[in-house]
């Protein structure tokens, strides 16, 4: 079987298209690369949607955390503390069994036990909490002069937020947010290793890498392939985010623009 044939069979295996049976013996390098790459579709799906939806909630929570109102501030603080203070791993497990009990209680939320929805919800809340903390920090470090200038121009309320506070917050928080995005994508690898089952062996990249490592007893091939895929994705994220970074800082003189420095540090 030629490599191209393998690609045709397995490129969308993780979504349920193409060949149904996974290869069982005589694994070729091509099969491993294709299947692990096919699993990456899930990682990208989870990462992308959680990141985009989480962004909006994060801004809201960050504003809530900075709010002077007690009943707005406390819930935001607790939200951030709960999701940042406990392991994502446990969050996945808890959420899965919570959704499972929804299904048994038949309240119409049973579809959340599917990985594509349930895991996305958990990742969404998790990344919202982490980014809210980042944006909160950025909000605190907005130069006093900029807000005062906005006041002097007679901007207030929504207009001041839209034109002054929000862009500056985004600009200041962006390097840290890039880091968060990278780690969100790394965290997507956890999905099929926690409660959420992979139906009909449609899993993410790590699921397939683990499958091959289990079958061949040789971790030295699938895991490096997985690592290369993740590094490629990390590079893509850095590329996109640095474009946005340039755009956010376009009003600053060249040498004053902050560079994106990637500091991978976080495990959740």
């Amino acid at each position, binding site marked *: 079987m030629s490599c191209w044939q393998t690609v045709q069979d397995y490129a969308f295996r993780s979504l349920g298209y193409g060949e149904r049976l996974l290869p069982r013996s005589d694994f070729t390098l091509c099969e491993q690369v294709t299947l692990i790459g096919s699993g990456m579709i899930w990682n990208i799906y989870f990462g992308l949607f959680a990141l985009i939806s989480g962004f909006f909630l994060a801004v809201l929570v960050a504003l809530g955390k900075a709010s002077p109102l007690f009943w707005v501030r406390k819930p935001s603080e607790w939200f951030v503390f*709960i999701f940042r203070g*406990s*392991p994502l791993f446990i969050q996945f497990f808890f959420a899965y069994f919570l959704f499972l009990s929804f299904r048994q209680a038949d309240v119409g939320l049973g579809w959340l036990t599917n990985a594509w929805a349930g895991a996305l919800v958990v990742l969404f809340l998790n990344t919202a909490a982490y980014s809210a903390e980042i944006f909160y920090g950025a909000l605190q470090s907005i130069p006093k002069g900029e807000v005062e200038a906005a006041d002097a121009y007679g901007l207030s309320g929504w207009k001041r937020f839209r034109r002054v506070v929000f862009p500056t917050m985004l600009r200041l928080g962006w390097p840290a947010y890039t880091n968060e995005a990278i780690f969100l994508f790394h965290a997507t690898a956890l999905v099929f290793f926690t409660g959420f089952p992979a139906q009909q062996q449609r899993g993410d990249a790590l699921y397939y890498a683990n499958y091959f490592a289990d079958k061949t007893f040789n971790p030295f091939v699938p895991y490096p392939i997985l690592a290369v895929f993740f*590094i490629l994705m990390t590079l893509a994220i850095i590329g996109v985010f640095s474009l946005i970074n340039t755009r956010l800082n376009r009003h600053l003189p060249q040498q004053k623009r902050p560079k994106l420095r990637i500091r991978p540090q976080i495990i959740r």
Partner: protein
Amino acid sequence: MAFYASFGTVLLLLAVTAPLALAFGFAGAAAARSALLPLRWFGKSYIAIVRGVPDIAFFLFFVIALDQFFEWIRHQALCPDWDQPIRQGNDFVVCAAAKLPLNTAPQWMHEGYGFFLAVLTFAIVFGAFSANVLFGAMRAVPLAQMETAAAYGMSTRQSFWRILVPQMWVYALPGLSNLWMVLIKSTPLLFLLGVEDIVYWARELGGTKTSRFTDYPHGDWRMWYFLGLLVFYLAFTKISEIVLDRLTRRLNHGQATSGGEKLRRAAA
């Protein structure tokens, strides 16, 4: 009962891993700023590789890889007259005397070995993270301090141990305390490594029990067990936060940093 003991497993893992990872990190950081080129390359690439890849892939990879590595070394040492290849197709075969742990060993040896592998993996991964923190901290120590040491006629080794190492901790502490939080949160990954930790027992005990097998039949309680774990981790994080805050105050005392300055002002 085993459920409560598994909390002990987690605490033991933390107690053993944290110093070990710190030692790995110290060695890595010292290697990365060594004057010898190969040693420097080794230190830097250790830091770079481990930080670039999702941690969970590393956890899955290292456990098998280390296991095979140890068995391979014992195989070379113990069975010199073994003529078959070690990798036979998809199987990894070593002679019976080189098996780790020995097939005849009691059960606790197997569990202990699994735990040992887990600790080593954690130490390698977190060692890289802490190496990065310590490397940064060593560079943050004011150059004037090192120059003064040289002016007093200290050798490189003396100034490293007497000036650099005592002073770097205050710079390293924010990073290290962050790392400690992350380490707490990554302990449930033990479950993936096959150690019977709290996640394992929560799944086992929480599952539906019928009166046929146990005196205490109950429905699916896994959700509540995981809620308990969530609370356990949150409480642990909170306590660590408080302790680390105190430690920071202690270390800042009398240091030539803004934190130390603030303490001095407050006292005066």
